């Protein structure tokens, strides 16, 4: 079994076997993060460029640490302070980066599909670190890794995904992964933030957060993405909190051994109550730890594969 891909652009094109390979490989890499010397020589001499057109702390640092733990050289380009702010087009930026022969380009962009445009024109492997409202495959992989580590499997689990579904690439990647691996997904959110025809992704739309949480093994909360909202999607923070936040009272409806995930950054007091975010069921920081192992697996498997340009 190997990953027969030049790039990792989405979950949609991954088979269940490929997802399992990525998660299994990440399991082995997690141990490296617990060593005194957190570094192996595997990708010595390889170059990983992180090109981020949107703000990010967690994901960018996570990819950078993952690359460095594998002994690759990691270079970070952020849009402010780069030629992008001088009006350079995406294609020109990418061509210039290619001229310096990186092995992997990790890319975040506000436009859905931008990494596909780049991947077709680049010899380097491209990893989508979030494109607009489309996908964020490594986030879904680290969520699945965290769930599998605690529950042993993804098959047969009941998973509630709650919040701003409309703007969430994390949601889209997770639904594709979880349904492919045999979990049952129920979603809930304000009607204005539930995408039309979301049932077609194979999820059940619950009439309320209470219904979605009933008997859930896993609760995945999504951030309210104010930066992507140009209109009024809900009347007030207080009303959102009252109707859709994960609170201590609501979590009682889930299973006793429920685990709570959130891709971060969290809006305390908006989609999640502080006491829940910091509480015993929360694996929010464990997700961050696992993110490094998952991204190490992605870098390892992509650079191990042949790099043919299509």
């Amino acid at each position, binding site marked *: *079994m*190997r*990953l027969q891909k030049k790039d990792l652009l989405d979950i949609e094109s991954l088979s269940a076997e490929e997802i399992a390979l990525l998660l*299994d*490989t990440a*399991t*082995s*890499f997690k*141990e*490296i993060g617990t*060593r*005194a*010397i957190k*570094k*192996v*020589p*595997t990708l010595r*001499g390889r170059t990983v460029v992180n090109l981020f057109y949107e703000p990010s702390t967690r994901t960018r640092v996570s990819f950078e640490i993952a690359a460095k733990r*594998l002994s690759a050289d990691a270079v970070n380009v952020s849009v402010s302070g780069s030629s992008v702010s001088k009006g350079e087009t995406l294609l020109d930026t990418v061509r210039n980066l290619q001229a310096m022969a990186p092995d992997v380009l990790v890319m975040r962009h506000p436009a859905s599909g931008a990494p596909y445009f780049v991947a077709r024109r680049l010899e380097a492997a491209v990893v989508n670190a979030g494109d607009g409202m489309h996908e964020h495959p490594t986030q879904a992989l680290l969520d699945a890794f965290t769930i599998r580590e605690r529950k042993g499997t993804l098959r047969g689990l009941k998973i509630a995904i709650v919040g701003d579904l409309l703007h969430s690439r994390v949601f889209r990647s997770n639904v594709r992964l979880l349904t492919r691996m045999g979990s049952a997904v129920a979603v809930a959110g304000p009607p204005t933030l539930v995408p039309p025809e979301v049932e077609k992704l194979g999820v059940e739309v619950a009439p309320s957060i209470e219904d979605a949480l009933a008997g859930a093994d896993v609760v995945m909360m999504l951030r309210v993405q104010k930066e992507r909202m140009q209109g009024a999607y809900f009347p007030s923070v207080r009303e959102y909190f009252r109707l859709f936040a994960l609170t201590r009272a609501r979590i009682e409806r889930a299973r006793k051994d429920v685990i709570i995930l959130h891709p971060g950054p969290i809006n305390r007091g908006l989609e999640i109550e502080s006491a829940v975010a910091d509480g015993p069921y929360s694996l929010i920081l464990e997700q961050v730890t696992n993110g490094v192992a998952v991204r190490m*697996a992605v870098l*390892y*498997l992509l650079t*191990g*594969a*042949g790099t043919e340009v299509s």
Partner: protein
Amino acid sequence: MESRAFQSTLDRLASEIAERTRGLEGKLALVGIRTRGVPLARRLAERIESGTGTRPAIGALDITLYRDDLTTVGAQPIVRNTELPFALDDSWVVLVDDVLFTGRTVRAAITALIDFGRPRKIELLVMVDRGWRELPIQADYVGKALETKREHSVQVLLEEEDGRDEVVLVENGS
């Protein structure tokens, strides 16, 4: 080597280790290189225990991430776990592998081991030494030395992995 000879070779190797590490009980660790070094290390540890009354620590080392040919093989070897559940500092480690060939696996294993700590000594045990070294590495304990051609393939089959204990020489390689 047939099964009988295989067993007596393991007996001999275990007593050689016990002999050389006498007085070091509690410091001795047998570290198998994945995949086939691991069951070999376990079997040797059992024999040493029944001889000396002290069971050496056992570990398993995955050297995939330390290989020097990852950039050229173009494949993705599966990465497995390394397990070293004992204090490596000041220990006496015997690395255990099935076949010693170019020496590159052993080089990788030593590098990997040193990333975890500073053993007092690292020794090497192999079931078969088939020659054709590409690095200045030799074994301290050898089950059997085989004259081979470069293109030959030597396989150590083990009960745990393959259902029988046997050393097989394949003339045409693989």
